[in-house]
């Protein structure tokens, strides 16, 4: 009986456990269903409350560290472009307004306005752009209209900002004084317009000059770190997170010499400012042995002479045009190198200035015949007086049957292609060689004296630099190294573009170029402090269809007006060339003519004289003329 009762109890206990477990499983099942439904709800239609987001927002925040853009330096390390932040100052005019209104505290509002008035006096004294009353009226109107972001001043430097932060009201900070400061990285050009087109800029999609071409070196790499807030509300680095330090941009050391650039800029400005008819002017100074560009000036006016001279466009690289008589040196170099002209004293008949084949008569030859009574002329004299006839005759006689030979020379002088350069945008020359659409029976002769072939001034300067460097044509370059904290990490060495002629040919042509200065079209340079060898050139510029206004003459409009350019290109000192120099001025559309032997030669003279006084190359050593006797002790007592 007892055993039976125990068995009965066990069965009842088991039934109870089963019932309890059943209910527990039901509860778990229901809860699971609820959780599942909640998940589906959250994933599909639940919108998170902003308060909840704040609760779950991580304590750390990602902070981006911007790199400092590298500097662009002159060859001696002076900065052409540096980066520093500038600051924009704004004001929340409504600051504490609601607080005063809620307390109905008119005295506090009056006190605030009095401080605002003092602030306005200080702002007016600091910036001198508005009167104190104007500042005050703007701020009070902003306060009444609820302006929370009134612009006070933009682009102020750090020192100015620090002073402004001490002004009444603003010294109370952002929460009580309403000052809002925003900074932005800006490029500073300490020399203003000097070499500005060479240095260039990067502004959004506008990219020019070295800034654009070496942007990959200059811009650096941004970094980031995670920061967390401390108990005293300071933001510090979160040590449990990754840190990527910002890498500042590398510095670019250019070949430009600030002093040369300054001298060239000033000399050119002087010439242009004295002549309203000049639209623009350029100067290139290149080191003969290396091709390093020591100065590159690009000054131009706007549509009218009244506009300010500024570095608007890089004409040295982009102005592809017929260069005129400076290209006669190309012909001379070719005929001497090929052995057609063995001596510059070699003569050719004058023929009254006529070359058969449809060429225009050269009236200068008639003058020559009249003055000398001769019926022949030396190659040297033809070069000195820049005779078109002489060079047409040379080209027709020596290359008439094989014009391609002359054009092969032109291409070997790199005058037919846009070679690689440190700034993009070098114009591609246009050469009307045999077989092209521009070729005609007179193209050979006109090419010989500088028409029919269009090149940039940099091409011309590079060619003359090849002669100055005794036939070795150096590739012009603007950047000599990339540096990091003063340490060179990449160096750009001089390189040779081509060997264009023998040393003897270069010497012969140099003699002819010296004669141009001594007796020819560039005698204004005769008295320069260093001997100069070079060539002048005056060319008419092909007008655009708009400028031509229906005229069939490509060089003149219907009123006979034209655009021309005057060039002097050469090197100095002539005996042992150190620098090649090119100066070109471009005229407005007018009836005026500008010759290479006038304004450009005058600018060259000034530049050469100043470089002579400045360059250590021509420093003079003071030699000992005698000796001071050594005084022995006691000798001066008598």
């Amino acid at each position, binding site marked *: 009986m007892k055993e039976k009762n125990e068995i009965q109890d066990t069965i009842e206990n088991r039934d109870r456990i089963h019932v309890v477990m059943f209910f527990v499983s039901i509860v778990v099942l229901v809860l699971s269903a609820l959780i599942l439904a909640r998940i589906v709800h959250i994933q599909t239609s639940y919108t998170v409350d902003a308060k909840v987001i704040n609760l779950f927002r991580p304590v750390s925040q990602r902070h981006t560290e911007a790199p*400092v853009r590298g500097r662009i330096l002159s060859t001696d390390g002076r*900065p052409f472009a540096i980066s520093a932040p500038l600051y924009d100052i704004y004001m929340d005019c409504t600051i504490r307004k609601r607080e005063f209104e809620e307390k109905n505290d008119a005295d506090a509002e009056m006190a605030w306005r009095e401080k605002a008035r003092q602030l306005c006096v200080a702002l007016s004294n600091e910036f001198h752009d508005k009167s104190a009353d104007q500042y005050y009226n703007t701020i009070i109107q902003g306060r009444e209209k609820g302006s929370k972001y009134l612009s006070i001043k933009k682009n102020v430097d750090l020192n100015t900002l620090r002073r402004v932060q001490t002004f009444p009201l603003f010294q109370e900070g952002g929460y009580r004084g309403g000052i809002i400061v925003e900074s932005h990285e800006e490029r500073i050009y300490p*020399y203003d317009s000097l070499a500005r087109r060479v240095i260039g800029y990067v502004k959004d999609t506008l990219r020019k000059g070295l800034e654009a071409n070496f942007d990959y070196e200059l811009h650096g790499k941004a970094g980031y770190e995670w920061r967390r807030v401390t108990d005293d509300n300071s933001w510090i680095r979160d040590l449990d997170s990754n840190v990527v330090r910002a890498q500042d941009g590398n510095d670019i050391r250019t070949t430009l010499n600030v002093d040369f650039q300054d001298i060239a800029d000033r000399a050119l400005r002087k010439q242009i400012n004295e002549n309203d008819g000049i639209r623009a002017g350029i100067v290139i100074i290149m080191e003969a042995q290396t091709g390093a560009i020591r100065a590159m000036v690009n000054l131009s006016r706007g549509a009218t002479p009244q506009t300010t001279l500024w570095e608007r466009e890089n004409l040295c690289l982009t102005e592809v045009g017929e260069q005129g008589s400076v290209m006669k040196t190309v012909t001379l170099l070719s005929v001497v190198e090929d052995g057609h002209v063995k001596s510059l004293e070699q003569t050719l008949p004058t023929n009254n200035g006529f070359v058969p084949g449809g060429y225009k008569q050269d009236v200068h030859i008639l003058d020559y015949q009249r003055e000398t009574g001769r019926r022949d002329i030396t190659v040297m004299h033809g070069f000195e007086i820049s005779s078109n006839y002489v060079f047409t005759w040379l080209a027709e006689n020596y290359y008439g049957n094989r014009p391609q030979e002359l054009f092969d020379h032109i291409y070997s002088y790199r005058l037919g292609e846009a070679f690689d350069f440190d700034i993009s945008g070098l114009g591609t020359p246009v050469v009307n060689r045999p077989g092209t659409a521009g070729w005609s029976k007179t193209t050979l002769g006109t090419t010989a004296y500088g028409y029919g072939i269009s090149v940039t001034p940099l091409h011309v300067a590079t060619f003359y630099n090849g002669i100055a460097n005794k036939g070795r044509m150096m590739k012009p370059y603007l950047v000599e190294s990339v540096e990091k904290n003063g340490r060179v990490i990449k160096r750009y060495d001089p390189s040779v573009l081509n060997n264009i002629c023998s040393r003897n040919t270069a010497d012969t042509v140099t003699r002819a170029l010296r004669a141009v200065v001594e007796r020819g079209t560039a005698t204004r340079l005769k008295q320069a402090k260093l001997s100069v060898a070079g060539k002048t050139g005056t060319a008419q510029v092909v007008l655009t269809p708009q400028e031509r206004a229906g005229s069939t003459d490509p060089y003149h409009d219907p009123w006979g007006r034209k655009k021309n350019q005057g060039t002097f290109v050469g090197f100095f000192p002539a005996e042992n060339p150190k620098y090649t120099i090119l100066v070109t001025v471009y005229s407005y559309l007018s009836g005026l003519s500008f010759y290479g032997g006038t304004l450009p030669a005058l600018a060259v003279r000034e530049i050469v004289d100043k470089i002579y006084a400045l360059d250590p190359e021509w*420093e003079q050593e003071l030699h000992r003329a005698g000796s001071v006797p050594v005084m022995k002790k006691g000798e001066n007592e008598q």
Partner: protein
Amino acid sequence: MTAHAVWTAIKNSARALRNGEFLLRVRADKLYMHILYLFLLMWLTIMLSLQVDKTLTRAGANKAAIEELKIHHAEREAALVKLRSASGIEERLEKMGSKVASPQEPATIIKKR
């Protein structure tokens, strides 16, 4: 363990706490050094954490000061470079009415032998 036993343990503990015998009852005297060591570690952890925060705050302030000095230096450098340009110097000399002008001849130097 039954609910009665648990209740008895809670009652005894409360009584021991009231009589100040709790730690003696659980024989905490054997763990005295461990407890002290635990407190020391906790104190060190908190203090070092605060010190690290303070140091990092100071480092951040110093970094900001250095950045500001760099900016100041860049601005000064730009201003000085501007003053140093040859044409700028000539213009200022002219304005001052000075007779000093750019050299017309190269410098004469004395070389040390």
